[in-house]
C-alpha cells in the first residue's frame, strides 16, 4: 500500500473528529474508522518502497514504519481504555492529528520537508488551550525548527571542517529542543492537559522525529560522523544522570514522571550515538517501551496524581520494575543491547552506563506508587501495558526485525 494513504487517512480522521466536535459519538466513530484504516495502511505499506503519486517521492524506512506502528498501537490502547476524565473523541482528535504529521515526517524525502511538517505540528499544538502561556508553549519547539533549518542551510554550503561540526551541533541541539530533553527542557505544568503539555513531544511525536532526523542526518554530517555520535552519547549520558536523579528527588510526582521520560530519552540518544546495530536496536526498544509502556502508564496515573494517592500494593512494585527496566520487561533487553554495543565501541562507556542503570531504581519505585490502586478500566490498561512490556522483553527479536535490524 502507498504511504500517501497512511498520511491521508489519519489526517481525514482528525479532520472529521474536529468537524463533528458538537456530536462526540459521530466524531469518535468517524475518527476511529479512519484512524483504524490509517493504521492498516501503515502496516500494509512496504518499507523502502518509493511512491510518487502526488509528485513527491514518499518512502517509509523500516525503522520509522516500526515506530509509527507502535505509536498507532499506543493511541489505539489509550482510546480503547481512556484515562479517567478524558474524552475519547478528544484523545482521538489530537492523536490522529499527530499521527498524520508523524507519518508525513516519516515518509518525507528530505529533512527540509520534515522540518516544515514539524513546524506545522508546533503551531497546531500551541494553538490548543493550555495553562502555560502561548509564548512558553511555542518557543522551545519553534527554536528546534530554527536550529534544524540552520543545520540544513549550513549543510548546503561548502567550507572548512568546522562547518560540518556546526551542522552536527545544530542537528543535535535541534533534536534536543524538539524533544524537550536537556539542555532544552520545556516548561512543565503538572495540571495542564497532556495534549497541550510537553509530553507529546517526549512520548508521542518525539520517537518518530528522532528516528527520521538521525536517519537523514547521515549524508549531512559526512566526515563528522564520529562527532555526531559522540555528541549524542554525551547528551544521552547527561540526560540519564540528571533526569534519573531529578525523577527521584523532585517534589512533584508529575514532574517525576516527566523526568523519567527524559531519562529514557538519554538511553535512546546513547543508542543512536553508538552507530552499531545493537545500539540502534537498543534505542528502538527504548522508544517502543516509551510509546507502549511509559506513556499509557503516565496517563493512567494522572487521576491518582491529582488525588495524591500513593499505595504500596504488589501492582505498584510490578509497575516500578517495568519502569526501571528490570527483567523480564522491555527495558531489560534494551539495556543489554546498549551494554553490548558500548562494550564493542569503548568498554569504559559500558561501565558508566551499567552504573547509571542503577539510578533508575529509586525514581521508578516512586513512580510505581503514583499509579495508586488501579481499578476497572485503569486496571485493565495497566495490565495490558505490563503484558506488552513482558512480551517485548522476552521476544525483542521480531520487533527489531520489523525495524529492519
Amino acid at each position, binding site marked *: 500500500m502507498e504511504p500517501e494513504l497512511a498520511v491521508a487517512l489519519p489526517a481525514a480522521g482528525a479532520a472529521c473528529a474536529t468537524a463533528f466536535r458538537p456530536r462526540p459519538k459521530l466524531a469518535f466513530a468517524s475518527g476511529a474508522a479512519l484512524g483504524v484504516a490509517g493504521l492498516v495502511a501503515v502496516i500494509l505499506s512496504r518499507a523502502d518502497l518509493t511512491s510518487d503519486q502526488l*509528485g*513527491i517521492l514518499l518512502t517509509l524506512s523500516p525503522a520509522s514504519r516500526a515506530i509509527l506502528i507502535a505509536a498507532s498501537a499506543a493511541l489505539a490502547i489509550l482510546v480503547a481504555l*481512556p*484515562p*479517567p*476524565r*478524558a*474524552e475519547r473523541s*478528544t484523545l482521538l482528535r489530537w492523536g490522529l492529528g499527530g499521527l498524520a504529521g508523524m507519518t508525513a515526517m516519516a515518509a518525507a*524525502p*528530505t*529533512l*527540509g*520537508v520534515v*522540518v*516544515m511538517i514539524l*513546524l*506545522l505540528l*508546533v*503551531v497546531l499544538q*500551541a*494553538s*490548543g*488551550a*493550555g*495553562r*502555560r*502561556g*502561548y*509564548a512558553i508553549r*511555542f*518557543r522551545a519547539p*519553534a*527554536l528546534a*525548527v*530554527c*536550529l534544524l*533549518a*540552520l543545520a*540544513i*542551510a549550513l549543510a*548546503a*554550503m*561548502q*567550507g*572548512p571542517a568546522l*562547518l560540518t561540526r556546526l551542522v552536527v551541533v545544530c542537528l543535535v541541539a535541534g533534536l534536543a529542543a524538539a524533544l524537550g530533553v536537556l539542555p532544552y527542557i520545556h516548561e512543565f505544568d503538572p*495540571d*495542564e*492537559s*497532556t495534549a*497541550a503539555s510537553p509530553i507529546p513531544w517526549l512520548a508521542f511525536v518525539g520517537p518518530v522525529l528522532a528516528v527520521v532526523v538521525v536517519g537523514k542526518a547521515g549524508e549531512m554530517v559526512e566526515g563528522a560522523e564520529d562527532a555526531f555520535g559522540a555528541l549524542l552519547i554525551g547528551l544521552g549520558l547527561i540526560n540519564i544522570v540528571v533526569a534519573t536523579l531529578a525523577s527521584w528527588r523532585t517534589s512533584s510526582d508529575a514532574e517525576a514522571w516527566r523526568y523519567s521520560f527524559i531519562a529514557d530519552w538519554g538511553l535512546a540518544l546513547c543508542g543512536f550515538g553508538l552507530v552499531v546495530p545493537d545500539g540502534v536496536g537498543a534505542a528502538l526498544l527504548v522508544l517502543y517501551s516509551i510509546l507502549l509502556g511509559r506513556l499509557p502508564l503516565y*496517563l493512567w496515573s*494522572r*487521576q491518582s496524581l491529582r488525588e495524591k494517592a500513593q499505595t504500596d500494593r504488589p501492582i505498584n512494585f510490578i509497575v516500578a520494575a517495568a519502569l526501571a527496566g528490570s527483567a523480564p520487561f522491555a527495558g531489560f533487553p534494551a539495556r543489554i543491547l546498549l551494554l553490548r554495543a558500548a562494550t564493542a565501541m569503548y568498554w569504559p562507556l559500558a561501565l558508566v552506563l551499567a552504573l547509571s542503570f542503577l539510578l533508575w531504581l529509586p525514581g521508578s519505585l516512586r513512580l510505581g506508587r503514583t499509579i495508586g490502586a488501579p481499578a476497572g478500566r485503569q486496571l485493565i490498561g495497566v495490565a495490558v501495558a505490563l503484558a506488552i512490556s513482558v512480551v517485548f522483553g522476552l521476544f525483542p527479536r521480531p520487533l527489531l526485525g520489523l525495524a529492519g535490524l
Partner: protein
Amino acid sequence: MTEVAAFVAWLGAAVIVLADSRRGLAAGLAVVALAAAAIAWSQGEEGGAIVLLAGGVLGSALRFTIGPDGWGLMQPGSTPRLLFTIVVALVALWVALAVTSGPSAGFRFTALTVLVLLGGRLLEAAEPAVMLTAIAGVALVLGIVSGDGIVSYTLAALVAAGVSAMPAPATKRPRGT
C-alpha cells in the same frame, strides 16, 4: 540579482525583528517573501519563485488583519534589537563571503541572516502574532534551502500562509487528561 535579494531579505527580517504590531510584521513578511522569491528565481526555479511569493504575500495579507493594531516599529526599548540586526548582518556577511563557498553568496547570506534573526526574534518575543510571523519567515527560507524543487516551495508557501492565518488562542484552564 542575488546580492540585492540578500539585502532585501535582511531588510525584511530586520523589520520583523523591530516590529511589534501587525502592519510592521506584515510588511516585514512581504519583504522576506519577495527576497526569497528572487533567490528562487535566480536559481532557475521560476515556478517555485511565483508560488513562494504568492504564499508569502497571502501570509502577509493575513497578518495585516490579525494581531495588535498599528505599525509598532522601533518601539521604546528596541535598541538591543536594532544592534542585533546589524551584528547578525555583519557576521553573516563574513561567513557568506569569507568562510563558506558553494551556492551563491547571496543565497548563503540570506539563509544565515534570516534564520538567525528570526530565531532570535522567536526567543525574545511574547506576542503570538510576532512569533507566528517569525516562524512564517523561517518557513519561506526553508523553502529555498531544502532543495526539493517545486514541492518544497509549495509546502513552504502553504505553511507561511497557513501559519499567518492561525488565530492566537486565549490561555484558559482546560479540564480532563
